[in-house]
């Protein structure tokens, strides 16, 4: 009963709007959100906006520097670099999105089930997760490519499986904490079903953590998928994809034409950093608001 600031009731009586939450993340957070928004727009409309056909190839124009309407020049196969970057955004962002959706779903279900049932069910799920931890993402993706053939879908599913134990482990802690709150017991005594408590109360109260995890995982998935495509096991050339572009244009670095390999790399870095920054800030803000 000491005189701490926490005893003062705050003015806010309504849940914050998304916009005010975003504003509270500061200039870095807003900049990151802007980058993500632009990347999303490019992913959706990129191929429409691209000035040239990203797949038209003219070998005589290989590695040519920016000239005329070709603002970034040409890649090793004589294709317009800018158009390929714009068109490549789609698979570069869609892939990680699929991974994040899959692993967050699986991870949340496992974590909440383990936390709600506790006891033997929790032990069984935790052991299962421990086994899954043994398989690194890239390894699973290589296996998937060997079994199902190279391609984005198989790689994405493989990564989702590899990420699930991390998600479940982190969320399980938050779920356990939430489950031990007295309002959950109060709802149980009222006669609410486990499902309705988990869906309506438990998971919404874990939302800050879920959102933060998603943004961070998006970054990791993007890098891992780019690496997989770089290895030739994900998106196949000649499809524009930032990971593939790094791979295809790698020889250009040694020949003195680094632009076509570096620019897709830069795009990846920019988007991944933006996701990380936004994710961290959102999480911080949500934690503060919770106090």
């Amino acid at each position, binding site marked *: *009963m*000491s*005189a701490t*600031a926490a005893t*003062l009731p*705050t003015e806010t009586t309504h849940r914050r709007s998304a916009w005010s939450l975003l504003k509270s993340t500061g200039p870095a957070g807003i900049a990151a959100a802007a980058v993500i928004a632009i990347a999303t727009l490019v992913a959706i409309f990129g191929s429409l906006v691209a000035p040239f056909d990203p797949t038209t190839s003219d070998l005589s124009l290989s590695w040519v520097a920016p000239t005329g309407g070709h603002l970034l020049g040409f890649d090793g196969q004589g294709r317009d670099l800018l158009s390929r970057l714009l068109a490549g955004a789609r698979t570069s962002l869609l892939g990680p999105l699929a991974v994040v959706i899959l692993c967050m779903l699986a991870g949340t279900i496992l974590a909440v089930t383990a936390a709600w049932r506790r006891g033997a069910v929790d032990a069984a799920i935790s052991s299962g997760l421990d086994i899954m931890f043994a398989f690194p993402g890239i390894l699973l993706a290589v296996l998937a490519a060997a079994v199902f053939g190279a391609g984005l879908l198989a790689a994405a599913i493989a990564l989702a499986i590899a990420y699930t134990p991390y998600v479940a482990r982190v969320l399980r802690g938050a779920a356990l904490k939430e489950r031990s709150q007295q309002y959950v017991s109060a709802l149980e005594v009222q006669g609410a079903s486990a499902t309705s408590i988990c869906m309506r109360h438990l998971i919404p109260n874990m939302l800050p953590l879920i959102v933060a995890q998603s943004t961070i995982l998006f970054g990791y998935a993007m890098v891992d998928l780019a690496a997989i495509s770089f290895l030739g096991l994900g998106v196949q050339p000649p499809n524009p994809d930032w990971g593939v572009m790094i791979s295809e244009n790698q020889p250009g670095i040694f020949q003195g034409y680094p632009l076509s390999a570096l620019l897709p790399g830069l795009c990846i870095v920019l988007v991944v950093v933006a996701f990380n920054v936004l994710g961290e800030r959102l999480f911080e803000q949500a934690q503060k608001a919770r106090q």
Partner: protein
Amino acid sequence: MSASIPAGATATAQSRTDAPLLEVDGLTVHLPVEGAQRDVLRDVSFGIRAGEALGLVGESGSGKSMTARAIDRLLPDGAEVEGAIRFEGRDVGTLAGADLRAFRGRVAMIFQDPRAHVNPVRRIGDFMTEALRTNLGVPTSTAERRAVHMLAQVGIDDGERRLRQYPHELSGGLLQRVMIAAALLTEPRLLLADEPTTALDVTTQAEVMAILHDLRREFDLAMLFITHDLELAAAVCDRTVVMYAGQIVEVRSSALLHGDPLHPYTAALAAARPDIGQTSRRLRAIPGRPLSAFEAPPGECAFAPRCPHVVDECRAGVPDIVELDGGRSRCVRARELRGRLGVSSDG
């Protein structure tokens, strides 16, 4: 209540009977709260004599814990302090380095939740002897012997075994007794006790209070006893200070506190408590809720919005402290209401 001088007490600059051991003078503290600097303590002044037990009573926002922290130099970052705190004649705020460590040896503090103040991965023995070994250079075996002896004083007989245990192996009551023993090892002159028994069972509380009473007499230890429990403070302390919204509203000898309080808040607080001896139809509840210093309406008596004896004059300005019958009251109507506030009189 005069205290006898124990053998070996170091001669200090002031005489024992007159100058207070601890003097808090106009203490005002501002803390950063949600971006702005806000008052949490306003003009707090009191003294504790050697060997005296002073109770500090208040509800949420009263500032009682903050006062103890200010004395022990444990305020959070960003705190601004005005006024002075003097211990054995020296200004506590200016102490640094070795002086500060020596001060901490002479003023010990125990807290409400002992587990939050002890390292769970260190043994009890390590924790207890640390101050002796590090600050006073006492060899480990001697420190441990003293620790075992002190544990026996707090009623823990198998001291050697306890020294080797970890905090989680002890119950809350036991751990609190260990904390008291640890606090007393450096032979402090003053014990700051911040709600030490609030989290304990009432029978354990009685035992801990009995232990504190015995130890205080044996070591001539002064105590600042912080609690929300008016009855407890009045029962175990010589004098009681009542705080509200970061200010002192009453200082009174404990024997007179219930029968003849000097401030309407003290009377209301006592009356709000259910009586263990009889059931009453309804309790005399105080409307509204207790405020922090920065929530209180400025420029008037902080208790005015909730006071049953409020008049216009109460809102004219923050009331000054009035000396009355050996006690003090921050009420403009203190003299007028004298004798009419007691629990025995009907409200």
